């Protein structure tokens, strides 16, 4: 039966103020059922306060074959890392 159900990707916000994070996927007949399945599968131990689901087929992904073109050029741009600055002690969350 689950073979007939489309796949949904599940994103969980673990606490208010944090972002939703991808945690896995569930099969479900529709979005409402996907939320219920995500709740039952991924939040049984109080892992979350909010759930997003999205049809896996609606996700556009980068092509691994293009990885060189997309990501290689960033390799030699180390100056983009903010490691050349001294961070004041008072700044905690950088």
């Amino acid at each position, binding site marked *: 039966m*689950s073979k007939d159900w489309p796949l949904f990707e599940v994103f969980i916000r673990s606490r208010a103020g944090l972002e939703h994070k991808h945690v896995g996927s569930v099969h479900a007949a529709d979005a409402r059922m996907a939320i*219920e*399945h995500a709740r039952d599968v991924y939040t*049984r131990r109080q892992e979350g306060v909010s759930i997003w689901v999205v049809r896996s087929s609606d996700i556009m992904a980068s092509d691994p074959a293009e990885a060189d073109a997309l990501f290689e050029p960033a390799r030699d741009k180390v100056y983009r890392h903010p490691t050349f600055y001294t961070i004041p002690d008072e700044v905690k969350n950088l």
Partner: protein
Amino acid sequence: MSVAKTTPGVTDASGAVGSGVTAPGARPCDDTLLRYLLRLGDTSLVLGQRLGEWIGHSPALEEDLGLANLSLDLVGQARLLLTYAAEVEGKGRDEDALAFLRDAPQFMNLTLAEQPNGDFAQTIVRQFLLDAWQLEMYEALSSSSDTRLAAIAAKALKESRYHYRFSSGWLIRLGDGTEESHRRAQNALNGLWRFTDELFSADEVDEQMASAAIGPSLGELQPRWSARINEVLREATLERPVSARYPWHGKRGVHTEHLGHMLTEMQHLQRTYPGAQW
């Protein structure tokens, strides 16, 4: 529920619970409250056990977990209610002794709860009808004059809201789904409907609890339950069966044959190895 911290010999061999015998010195009100708590607790326990039977057999892994979650909620409610019942009874029994060492005639659950799982549609219909009932009951009980019962109900109410969302969603999906799923849902509804009369037929226990403001008036809950059912059935394109007054008395300890079979399995371990723990 951890298994039995029961002390051998403490079990009430006379089966006084629910047999109408009031323990010497007990106020009549305690006996009535005891029966009332057993009705609520046993309904949750029996329904929870039934759902547990699906584990490993559900139509999908996600449903397996979903039904197990509902089952655990219900067993948790049963534990709170039966713990309270055991204290009211005051015979040294605990919730495990009540769950595992009573026979079918001493169980006070609604007859609907003990009906077999059947196919998935039958499980969903049984769940939906009882979820709607528990939702109304717990909402009313959360303002009970009995503060302990009110606290248990307030906790259970949150669980029931999810259960109702789950089962009503499935019923709509099945009823308004394929020809096959519609047929199965309607069959299940037709088969189980005769057990719904018991949900709201008040007897002296319900009436005494209502007049003490411990429990709700079942007569007042009935139309609210009925409206919920109608709304979902309409959306599910299912036909509400004709009402039939049928004398089921699960809450008085008179059960269909199914409960005995279910208890045989549920109680097997404690009956075979009394006091076993893990």
